[in-house]
C-alpha cells in the first residue's frame, strides 16, 4: 500500500523569500513521486517528478525537490517566492508495481499563500 502525507495544510511566505512544502511518503515498492500544482479554478499541472534517477529533481518555475529515501521525504522548495506561485500543491506517489497502469495516490494538498 502507498500513502503520502503533506505535513502542512497551509503555508504563507513573503514574496522573495524561500518556499518549503513538506511531504513524506510510504510505499511498498520503489516509488515514483510527483508534485502537482493547481491554481484557483484550474486543472492540475505537473511541476516535477522523481523516477529513480537523480535524487535532486528540478521542475518548472524554479521549483525543485529532493528525494531522501532514509527520511521517506520529498520536500518541495523554491529559493524565492513569486506572487504567481500562490496555489494548491499536491504531493503524489505512484505504485510502480503496476507499471503502465499507475495508480496515483494524492496528498491532501498544501495551500501556498504569498504575502506581498
Amino acid at each position: 500500500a502507498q500513502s503520502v502525507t503533506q505535513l502542512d495544510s497551509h503555508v504563507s511566505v513573503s514574496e522573495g523569500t524561500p518556499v518549503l512544502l513538506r511531504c513524506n511518503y510510504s510505499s511498498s515498492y520503489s516509488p515514483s513521486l510527483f508534485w502537482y500544482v493547481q491554481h484557483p479554478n484550474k486543472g492540475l499541472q505537473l511541476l516535477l517528478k522523481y523516477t529513480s534517477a537523480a535524487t535532486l529533481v528540478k521542475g518548472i518555475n524554479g521549483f525543485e525537490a529532493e528525494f531522501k529515501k532514509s527520511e521517506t521525504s520529498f520536500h518541495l522548495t523554491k529559493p524565492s517566492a513569486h506572487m504567481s506561485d500562490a496555489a494548491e500543491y499536491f504531493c503524489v506517489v505512484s505504485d510502480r508495481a503496476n507499471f503502465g497502469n499507475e495508480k496515483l495516490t494524492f496528498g491532501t494538498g498544501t495551500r501556498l499563500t504569498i504575502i506581498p
Partner: protein
Amino acid sequence: DTAVSQTPKYLVTQMGNDKSIKCEQNLGHDTMYWYKQDSKKFLKIMFSYNNKELIINETVPNRFSPKSPDKAHLNLHINSLELGDSAVYFCASSPPSLHEQYFGPGTRLTVT
C-alpha cells in the same frame, strides 16, 4: 492544441437526474483516468482504462459508469445523481512508458 479536454466545464443539475461528462485526449496515450476532487480539495481516483479496457475501479457506486468508445475518449455517465456527487471531476491520461499523468481542466458538478 488542448491535450486533455473535458466538457462541460460546469454542470448544474437536480437530484435524480442522469448526466454525462466527456473527456478526450489528443496525446496518443493508452491509459485514461477519472478522478473526483471533493470540497476539501482531496483527489481520489475513480477509474482507469487502458486501451478501452477497465483496469482500476476504486469502489465507486455503480451509478457511475465509464465508457471508452476508443482509446482517445473516456466518458463518465452518472445515474440518479445525489447531493454527495457534487465535486470537481478530472480526467487524465498517461503514456505507457512514463509515470506522470496529464490532467484536463476539470468539470465542476453541482447537484441541487
